[in-house]
C-alpha cells in the first residue's frame, strides 16, 4: 500500500502553483504538508484527490497510475477545511452518503462511525445547528465510514478555536493511526503533534521530508529554522533556546535586556558580547544586568 507523487506540477489559469513535487507515502504513514500560506499545500492535496488536473508528473497507488482515474473512483476520504457538509441532509444521511452512492448497507456502519467520533445519537440532527467541533467530527465520520484507502485532510482544525483543536488533535491521531493520511496545516505545533513525517512546502514544492524531531533538532537552513519556530536564528547559525543557561562560570558574557515572569520560568532576552540578541526561558535568574551564559550553537545554511 503506497502512494507515489512523482514530478508533479500544477498550473491554474496560467500560474504555476506546484512544480516538481515528489512524495512517497507508505502503509499507515501520516504525512503533514506544512508550509506558509500560498506554498501549494492545499493544491497538492487536491491534486492527489483528482480535483485539479496535473500539468506534469504522475500520481500512482501501488504502481497503478491514478491520473486517469476520476475522483469518485479513487477510493479516498477527504475532510475539507470548511467540512462541506451537505446542508440538505441530516447528520446520519451525510455520513451515509458515500455508502448510499455505493449501494452499501449504511445503518450499522453509520451508527458505528458516529459512535467512533463521539456523536452517538446525532444521526437525526440537522447539520445546520452543529458547533464547529461537531461538524468536524461529522466530516471525519463521513470520510472514514467508506473505509478509504487514503485519508486527505485540509486544515481540519483550522476553523476551530485553539483549545477545541487541541482536544480533537489526540482524537484525530487515534482515528488516523490505522491508515495512510496526508494532512495539510500551516500550524507547526499541530504538524509536530500529528505527523509521522513532515513534508515542508515552500514556493510550490516540497523542500524536505523528515520526522518532526529531525526537523526540529536539525532544521538545516535558516528559513526552516525560523518557520518551525526557533527563536534565536542568525545568518548562518541558531541557538536553541532550551540550551541557554545562566551560570556564574558561563563562557559568554551577556546583558539582560528584559525579563518577564512566564509562570514558573522567566522569559529573558539578552544582548551577547558580539551584539546578537537571544531569548530563553530560564528557571533561576541571576541578579543584576550582567550575567554569564552557557549555550550550544548549530550551523545553518542560508535559506
Amino acid at each position: 500500500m503506497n502512494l507515489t507523487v512523482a514530478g508533479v506540477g500544477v498550473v491554474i489559469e496560467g500560474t504555476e502553483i506546484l512544480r516538481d513535487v515528489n512524495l512517497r507515502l507508505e502503509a499507515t504513514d501520516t504525512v503533514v504538508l506544512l508550509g506558509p500560506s500560498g506554498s501549494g499545500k492545499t493544491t497538492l492535496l487536491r491534486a492527489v484527490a483528482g480535483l485539479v488536473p496535473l500539468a506534469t508528473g504522475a500520481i500512482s497507488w501501488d504502481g497503478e497510475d491514478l491520473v486517469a482515474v476520476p475522483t469518485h473512483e479513487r477510493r479516498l476520504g477527504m475532510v475539507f477545511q470548511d467540512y462541506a457538509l451537505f446542508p440538505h441532509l441530516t447528520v446520519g444521511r451525510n455520513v451515509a452518503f458515500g455508502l448510499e452512492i455505493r449501494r452499501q448497507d449504511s445503518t450499522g456502519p453509520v451508527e458505528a462511525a458516529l459512535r467512533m467520533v463521539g456523536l452517538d445519537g446525532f444521526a437525526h440532527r440537522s447539520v445546520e445547528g452543529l458547533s464547529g467541533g461537531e461538524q468536524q467530527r461529522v466530516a471525519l465520520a463521513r470520510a472514514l465510514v467508506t473505509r478509504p484507502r487514503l485519508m486527505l485532510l485540509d486544515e481540519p482544525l483550522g476553523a476551530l478555536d485553539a483549545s477545541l483543536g487541541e482536544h480533537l488533535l489526540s482524537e484525530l491521531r487515534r482515528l488516523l493511526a490505522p491508515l495512510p493520511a496526508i494532512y495539510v496545516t500551516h500550524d507547526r505545533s499541530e504538524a509536530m503533534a500529528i505527523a509521522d513525517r513532515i513534508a515542508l512546502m515552500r514556493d510550490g514544492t516540497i523542500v524536505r521530508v523528515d520526522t518532526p524531531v529531525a526537523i526540529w533538532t536539525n532544521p538545516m537552513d535558516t528559513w526552516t529554522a525560523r518557520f518551525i519556530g526557533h527563536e534565536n536564528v542568525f545568518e548562518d547559525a541558531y541557538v536553541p533556546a532550551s540550551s541557554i543557561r545562566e551560570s556564574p562560570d558561563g563562557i559568554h558574557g551577556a546583558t539582560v535586556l528584559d525579563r518577564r515572569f512566564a509562570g514558573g520560568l522567566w522569559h529573558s532576552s539578552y544582548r551577547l558580547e558580539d551584539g546578537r540578541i537571544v531569548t530563553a526561558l530560564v528557571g533561576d535568574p541571576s541578579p543584576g544586568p550582567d550575567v554569564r551564559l552557557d549555550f550550544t550553537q548549530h550551523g545553518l545554511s542560508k535559506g
Partner: protein
Amino acid sequence: MTTRRRWLVIVPVVFLGYLFVYPVARIITIGLDGAASTLWATVTAPGTAGVVWFTTWQAVASTAATLLLGLPAAWAVSRLGLVRSRWFLAATTVPFVLPTVVVGVAFSALVSDSPIEHSALVVIAAHVFYNLSIVVRLVGVRWAQLGDHLEEAARTLGAGPRAVFRRVTLPALAPAIRAAGSLTFLLSFTAFGTVLILGDLRLRTIEVEIWRQATQRLDFGAAASLAVLQLLVVGLALAWQERSTVPRRPAVRSRPRTRSERRVARIVLVVLSAMVAVPILSLVADAVGPTSLAALSGGEVLGLSLSRAVITSLTYAAVATALAVVVGAATSTAIAARGRAAAVIDRLVLLPLGTSAVTVGLGFLVALDWPVDLRASRALVPLAHALVAIPFVTRTMAPALAAIPHRLLEASATLGATPAQAWRRVEWPIVARAALVGAGFAFAISIGEFGATAFVARPADPTLPLLVYRALGRPGAFAIAAMGSTMLMVVTATAVLAVDRFRTGEEAL
C-alpha cells in the same frame, strides 16, 4: 430616541390604510355582497370557468417554459462566474424591468399578421421573455455561490457526475428553483398588460376580466368578485412562496472551470441573449417611421400626441417618486426602530405588490369617493403609482437604515444632536444612496405602470403606456405604439440599470 421614531409608523398606516386596506375591504364587501350570492354568481357564470382555466394553465405553461430555458442559463452563469456573465445578467434584466405594455407591443410587432397572432403561444413566449431573469438571477446566483466544495466532497465520497447533480447540486438549488418558479407563476397568473395586448380580449386572464367587467361592462360587482377570487389564489401562492425562501449562505469562491465547459456556457448565454434581443429589435424597427416621428414632434396624429403623453407621464412620475420616497423613508425609519407596529407594517407594505395593480386600481374606483370624491382627481394616478412603488423604496432603505450602528446615533446625541439633527447629519448621508436607488425604482415603476393606471387615469390625460394601448386600437397607428414603447423601454431600462450600477457600487464600498 428610537422609541420616538416608532411613531413614524403612523405615516404608512394612514397612507396604506386609506389607499390600500380600505379599498380592498370595499372590494371584498362588494364582492361578497348579498350573502356571497354575487361571488357565487360570478364564479359560476359561463365565462368565468374559461377565464380561470386560461389564467391557470397559461401561468403553469409559462412557468415551465421559463424554467426550461432559464435553468441552462443559470448553469452557464454559475460556470462563468457572476463577474464574467454580468453583461448577460444585465441584458436579461432589461425585459424584467420593461413595462408590460412594452413587452406586449414588442411581441405584437414580432408576430403581427402571422398565424400565431393573438394565440396563447405568444402570451407564453412574452411571459418567458419577461420572467427569464428571475430564474437566471435567483438560481444562477445561488448556483455560483454554491462553490465547488459540496460537489467535490460528494466526488471524494464516490459520487459520479450524475449522482453529484441529483444528490447534491439539485437539492441545494431546490429552494431557489421553487422561489423562482412560484414568483414566475404569480407574475404570469396576475398578468394584465401582456395578455390585454397580445390576447386582444379573446384571451383573458382574471386580471383582464376584472378590467373588462369594470370598465367595458361597468359591472363593478362582478369585477369585485373576480378580484376576491384572485386575492385568494394570490394569497395561497404567496403563503407557499413564503415557505420556500432561499436560505442565505456566505458566498464561496468558485474555482476555475474547464475550457470546454466555459465554451458551452458562453454559447448558451449568447443564444439566450439573442432570443431576448429579437423582440426588442423588432419593436425598435417598427418604431421608426413618418407617423411616429410626427406624433413625437408635438403634433397630434390620429388623435394621439406622444409628446403630451410624455409630459404627463414625467409629471406623474416625479410626484409619485417624491411621495414614495417620503412615505418609504418614514416607513423604513419606523421599521429600523424595531417597534412592534413596524414589524406588521414591514409585511403590510409588501401587500400592494402581491395584490396586483388591477386590484389597486379597481379599489380606488370603488372606494375613494369618501371622505371626498377623489375619483376624478388628477392625484389618483401618482397616488396609485406611489402605492405600488413604496415596497421597493422600503426594501432598499430599511436594511440600509437598520445597518447603521446604534452607537453612531448615541455618539451624535452625546455631542448634542437632537434626533432630527442626528437623522439629517448622520443617518441621511449614510442612507441617501439607498434612497436614490429606491427613487430610481419608483420612477421606473411609475413611468411604466399600466394596470392601475388603466382604471384611474383621466381619459383626457393619458400616460405614455395608456397612449400606447390606445394607439394599438387605431388602424395605422402601430408605429406610434412602437415609438411610445421604445421610449418607455429606454427610460425604464436606463433608470433601472443606473440604479443597479449604483447598487453594485454601494456593495463595493
